[in-house]
């Protein structure tokens, strides 16, 4: 039997895709050709004829390479990004923030927790316990929109990443403003304080959100492999 993987690799050599993506295309097309060849053999065709009929499926490898490249680079990247990342991410952030405000309104305030001797941080335990659910929701929505594993995890941890970005941006903004107005505003002091409390407001919540995201990822991959037996 011909080495279909080798044939596809040669035929599509020069396909300008990422290594992983290219490998997937090669594997998929080789599997198709192999199955096609096996069916021709089962139908009673001599091996030579089966190979010939299988090869007939690709008249022009160069043309196929170009078509695959165009197809893989098509779509509406902006729309996809909105559906797979921004919408799930912002929804996760909005819901988790609304829940935090609600909890605080109900009297569940953040508590000072000491760690590593004199060091302390603020933690809101009921809120932290809810975050895996919000992270899972973001991951689910991203996954449903066809997001890759990386995008799914980014969407689930989006609130923590966005807050980290906002805190970090205070440094250059504060510095620039101080230069413009010619006096100290104290942005960097605020930002430093916020970063110091980052464990309670960024790292731990980020980990909790990520836990939910990872769980959804595992559940999805589990469901996929369990369906495989039915697909055959």
């Amino acid at each position: 039997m011909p080495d279909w993987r080798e044939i596809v690799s040669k035929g599509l050599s020069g396909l300008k895709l990422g290594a992983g993506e290219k490998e997937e295309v090669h594997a998929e097309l080789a599997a198709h050709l192999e199955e096609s060849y096996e069916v021709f053999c089962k139908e009673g065709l001599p091996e030579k004829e089966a190979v010939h009929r299988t090869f007939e499926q690709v008249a022009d490898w160069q043309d196929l390479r170009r078509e695959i490249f165009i197809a893989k680079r098509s779509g509406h990247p902006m729309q996809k990004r909105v559906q797979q990342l921004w919408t799930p991410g912002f929804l996760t952030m909005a819901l988790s923030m609304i829940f935090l405000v609600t909890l605080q309104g109900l009297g569940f305030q953040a508590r000072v927790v000491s760690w590593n001797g004199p060091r302390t941080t603020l933690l809101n335990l009921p809120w932290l316990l809810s975050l895996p659910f919000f992270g899972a929701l973001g991951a689910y929505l991203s996954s449903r929109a066809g997001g890759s594993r990386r995008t799914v995890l980014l969407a689930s941890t989006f609130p923590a990443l966005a807050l980290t970005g906002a805190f970090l941006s205070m440094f250059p903004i504060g510095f620039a403003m101080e230069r413009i107005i010619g006096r100290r505003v104290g942005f960097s002091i605020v930002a430093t304080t916020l970063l110091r409390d980052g464990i309670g407001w960024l790292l731990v919540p980020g980990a909790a959100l990520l836990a939910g995201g990872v769980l959804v990822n595992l559940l999805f991959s589990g469901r996929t492999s369990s369906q495989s037996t039915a697909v055959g």
Partner: protein
Amino acid sequence: MIGAGIKRGTAELAILSVLEEGPLHGYEMARRIEEQTKGALRFTLAALYPMLYRMEQRGWIRGAWETSPSGRRKRCYRLTPAGKKKLSPLRKEWAELFGALKRLTKAAHA
């Protein structure tokens, strides 16, 4: 009004329709389409995969590697909610096109 992209829609409609019945890998999809259209529609590998990748990029279908009972790894495609949503207007466009052609041929014969 029949859309301009209706020609390419034939293949898209065929793929979305067979995937509506359940997830399939590429070869099985091509076989199913050929069987169900009694050979009128045939997808070679070169025609099928660029179309599948394009539809995947648009978010209508989603492919995932799965292992069959025989241990062979295959990339199975399933409809996404966006793909399900796309199927209904595509069917309507095709019904309109066939209706229009039918009326046209009847008028030409009359």
